[in-house]
């Protein structure tokens, strides 16, 4: 597959490892922001082939993992309402809320449907006008424009039975929150390539300057990750802290202007609760008031106000994992009481969750 195979070429990977080994002179800790990058690192065994001086920390870039249990509880409550259908991406189904999950609610008769795209939920709203469709909109800035254009289309078409339960989050405030914590250990970030495909690079330059930390916006294939690590090491070894773009084939400085405009038209920035981490100011997106008719939290306010306070599992250490403080295998429940089929927390469920990556790929302790 073009634009994929060349970044999995063993000769290229071997050359990059050699270059990193020649460049590094002392220990450095690098955090990959995105869960997709974590899975590439685990799938291709990159931790094992990198020089011992390089420590990789796994970041919070898994939207399924950071969706607060209160919103999952709300989605569960909505799917049990008469003539209401909840649509969402497949990763969300097994994520535990306080007492249940969307998968369990579906098994008990709730109307939950998996979609590949928010446009599939819009098509369902057109096909079933007597049902209210709630699209459970999770995701970072990569996904927000897909939701935004879909609800914009619904509004234009007068499709009043299409609504959103929004849990969109933004990367830059999360990086700032991590850097502001007293125990921040990372020397550099591998930035989330697909978020920057939409948003561009400009939000990250002030972070590099203020915290004096290199950020290398990086792709998702093994050669991308290693090239990003090499660019981090080159900066760290020469005391530089710049923003650089490894993922040039997809990311430009200003990103995708049409997508950014649609996000701004439909959403406004809000404070957001992150599962396992807590409230991060200015880190979320919510629908603008003119979209209130398509906002499930407004349309179903009476149903949702009766929800008990959400509680996540006490045993799950996902907050520590998402902040890079602990590795999944350090959790006493990892692989025993918490598995992909019976997860205690979201990172064991998602295709971007660090715990799922370790459970699937780590044959040896890493």
């Amino acid at each position, binding site marked *: 597959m*073009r*634009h994929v195979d060349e970044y999995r070429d063993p000769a290229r990977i071997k050359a990059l490892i050699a270059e990193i080994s020649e460049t590094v002179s002392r220990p450095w800790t690098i955090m990959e922001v995105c869960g997709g990058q974590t899975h590439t690192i685990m799938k291709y065994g990159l931790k094992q082939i990198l020089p011992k001086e390089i420590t990789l920390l796994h970041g919070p870039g898994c939207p399924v993992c950071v969706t607060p249990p209160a919103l999952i509880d709300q989605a569960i409550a909505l799917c049990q309402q008469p003539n209401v259908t909840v649509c969402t991406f497949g990763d969300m189904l097994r994520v535990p809320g306080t007492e249940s999950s969307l998968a369990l609610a579906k098994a008990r008769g709730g109307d939950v449907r998996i979609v590949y795209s928010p*446009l*599939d939920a819009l098509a369902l709203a057109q096909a079933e006008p007597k049902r209210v469709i709630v699209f459970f909109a*999770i995701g970072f800035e990569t*996904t927000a424009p897909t939701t935004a254009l879909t609800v914009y289309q619904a509004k234009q078409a007068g499709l009043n039975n299409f609504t959103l339960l929004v849990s969109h989050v933004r990367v830059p405030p999360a990086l700032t929150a991590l850097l502001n914590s007293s125990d921040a250990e990372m020397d550099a970030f591998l930035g989330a390539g697909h978020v920057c*495909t939409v948003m561009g690079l400009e939000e990250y330059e002030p972070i590099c300057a203020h915290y004096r930390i290199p950020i290398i916006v990086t792709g998702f294939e093994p050669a991308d990750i290693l090239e990003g690590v090499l660019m981090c090491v080159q900066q760290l070894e020469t005391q530089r802290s710049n923003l650089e773009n490894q993922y040039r084939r997809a990311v430009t400085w200003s990103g995708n202007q049409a997508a950014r405009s649609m996000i701004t038209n439909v959403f406004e920035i809000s404070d957001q609760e992150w599962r396992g981490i807590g409230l991060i100011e200015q880190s979320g997106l919510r629908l603008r008031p003119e979209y209130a008719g398509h906002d499930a939290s407004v349309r179903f306010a009476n149903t949702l106000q009766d929800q008990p306070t959400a509680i996540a599992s006490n045993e799950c250490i996902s907050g520590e994992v998402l902040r890079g403080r602990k590795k999944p295998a350090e959790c006493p429940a990892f692989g025993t009481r918490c598995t992909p089929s019976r997860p205690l927390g979201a990172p064991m469920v998602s295709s971007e969750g660090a715990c799922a990556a370790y459970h699937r790929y780590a044959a040896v302790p890493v």
Partner: protein
Amino acid sequence: MCLALPGELIDIDRGEALHVGRVSFAGTLKRVCLAYTPEAVPGDYLLVHAGFSISIVSQRRADAIVVDLNTALKSDLP
């Protein structure tokens, strides 16, 4: 969730309310919304996320960084 794959744009259906095209992922065809890459033409490789094209993949921009990598590749040759 931020996963996106590159696929080749095969053709464009201009009859749709939304700008839509068929994209081939190693032979598997998928309908994709092109609203965010309206300049895309058949033969372009698009980065597709959740049914939307979010970027046209640029070999020219990719090559800009491969120059340095080629130096590393050569140094690894016997």
